[in-house]
């Protein structure tokens, strides 16, 4: 088990290294590093000085090592726009994005699993069919457009919810959070639902097909033959089996959800790092772009690692095999 974790950690480090190479190549070789790393407002003398200071006159491998060295020390350059360390900027925006993504994943669980159970247990009922049709729609909906429609209905027409922004926040440990105030929750409702839509459809389908797959199994009939109540059969026996694929997929989806927050944050003007990266791409604030990419790659690697670990906790069969 320990050996297995070490091996996974080693793989994670390798992926991180590969991504630094790709980002480095992207920034230094494909793009023009001078343009990328030096403010476009700089004059010629400043430019030359900066090139020397940044080591751009050195050979490529040495530049890469410098880049890596900086990355390891949390130094990915300063934002042109905000004139602050790029990593700190990302860090400031991170909580808002995380808050949104976690809420979206929670919504997917809270809505997707019950609807999926319903559709799986009663596939021919009107509600079951509706849930399935809704999930197909959920996959095809352009999420940014749904966001706009949500704003139109709930903010413009009905006036129930605020259309943009984060609302009132409460600071915990120096980080502002929206979910602790009613106003913040009202602001979060639409973006979170919007971001969750695809995940809800996904969880719904996974749960439904899991139920359909597990119900005819002998263990279900045996559980019934033991005289257990249908509630216990479904919510303990069947659900525990379904949770393995659902948690795995949802865990992996968490990374995608953070990435997709880019779109939702743009629609609802949610001040997270997704909004920041789009603004940064538009004004070519490249240090921020690099910082965002490295940060999100790191998150992905960590999430994949966590999902693998979680998987072994959930499925006793994997636990045994990996111990060998």
């Amino acid at each position: 088990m320990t050996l297995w974790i070490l091996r996974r950690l080693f793989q994670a480090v390798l992926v991180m290294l590969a991504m630094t190479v790709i980002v480095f190549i992207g920034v230094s070789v494909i793009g023009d590093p001078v343009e990328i790393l030096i403010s476009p407002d700089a004059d010629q003398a400043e430019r030359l000085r900066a090139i020397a200071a940044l080591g751009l006159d050195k050979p490529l491998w040495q530049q890469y090592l410098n880049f890596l060295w900086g990355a390891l020390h949390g130094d990915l350059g300063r934002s042109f726009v905000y004139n602050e360390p790029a990593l700190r900027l990302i860090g400031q925006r991170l909580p808002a994005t995380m808050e949104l993504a976690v809420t979206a994943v929670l919504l997917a669980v809270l809505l997707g699993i019950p609807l999926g159970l319903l559709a799986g247990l009663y596939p021919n009922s009107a509600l079951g069919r509706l849930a399935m049709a809704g999930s197909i729609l959920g996959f095809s909906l352009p999420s940014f457009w749904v966001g706009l429609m949500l704003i139109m209905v709930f903010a413009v027409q009905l006036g129930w919810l605020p259309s943009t922004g984060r609302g009132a926040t409460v600071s915990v440990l120096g980080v502002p959070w929206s979910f602790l105030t009613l106003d913040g929750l009202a602001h979060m409702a639409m973006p979170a639902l919007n971001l969750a839509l695809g995940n809800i459809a996904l969880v719904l389908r996974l749960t439904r097909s899991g139920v359909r797959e597990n119900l005819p199994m002998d263990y279900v009939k045996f559980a019934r033959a033991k005289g257990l109540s249908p509630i216990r059969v479904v919510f303990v026996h069947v659900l525990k089996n379904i949770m393995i694929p659902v948690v795995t997929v949802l865990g992996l989806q968490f990374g995608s959800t953070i990435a997709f927050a880019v779109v939702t944050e743009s629609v609802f003007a949610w001040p997270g790092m997704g909004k920041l990266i789009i603004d940064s791409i538009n004004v070519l604030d490249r240090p921020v772009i690099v910082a965002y990419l490295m940060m999100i790659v790191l998150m992905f690697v960590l999430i994949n690692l966590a999902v693998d670990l979680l998987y072994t906790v959930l499925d006793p069969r994997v636990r045994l095999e990996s111990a060998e």
Partner: protein
Amino acid sequence: MNEPTLVVRDLATHFTLRNGVVRAVDNVSFSVDRGKILGLVGESGSGKSVTGFSILGLIDPPGHIAGGSIKFLGRELVGMAERELRGLRGNRIAMIFQDPMMTLNPVLRIDTQMIETVQAHADVSQAEARRRSRDALGMVGIPSPDERLSAYPHQFSGGMRQRVAIAIALLHQPDLIVADEPTTALDVTIQAQILSEVQKLAANFGTALIWITHDLSVVAGLADEIAVMYAGRIVEAGRVESVLDRPLHPYTHGLIGSVPSRNRRGARLRQIPGMTPSLLDLPPGCAFRLRCARATAACEQDPPITAPGDDRLLRCFHPQLDVAA
């Protein structure tokens, strides 16, 4: 004389499909006494498993019990409220399934799966339920039951898993156990161990046992009574020695002839010609007639149940009275 544990009369279980009705169980009658073992024999698709599930009320749509009666200790099970049936299942009537690899939930520990069974029918503490579970495991011959309780099913071999399933069936010392081919998936040596242990347990607790199998040799060594099913009907029934020594129905004859035996070394194994008929909209008459060497025009009528003596029942116009070679 005591009342039998289970009396099944004219049981009919049908499956209504889009293209017709499958009479999986048709006019089946038998009874099992306290402490006795009934061997329910037949090929796959003969309706023997459906009979077992009918007794537990575990027939799922599109299947349904279309008629007949199942009396368990004097109580009618057909039409009984689901809640009441649930109180009997796993408590007074237990079931053991064919494939031990599939019957235990792979992601729940053994103790979870046992304790929930205890607590479904007895208002006892977690600790007491655990103690009972441990005792049941010990009873079926699982070494160090205390440790094994916290294991997962995949940590057991097939034979051990079936012992766990049997232990679960025994938790409430049921009056009736329906065992659906419980040793088919196991090695021969393990099969023998389990058979002898089950026989012992049934005798000790006075549990009545229905042993569903396609294997005549298992029935020969285990059961007191035998009922042979073909295409949803019991074609012949009686005491095991009597039926196996002097089979009357051509089908029973064929079954016995197809079992390899020490006494007939070198002789050719006979096989029954033809295939089991589809049960979908089966025409009236004896279902075996198309494979039967003795069939005549009379067989196109439903053969009545006759009692050719020695406590035997038969459903055939042309019983084979000569003894098998």
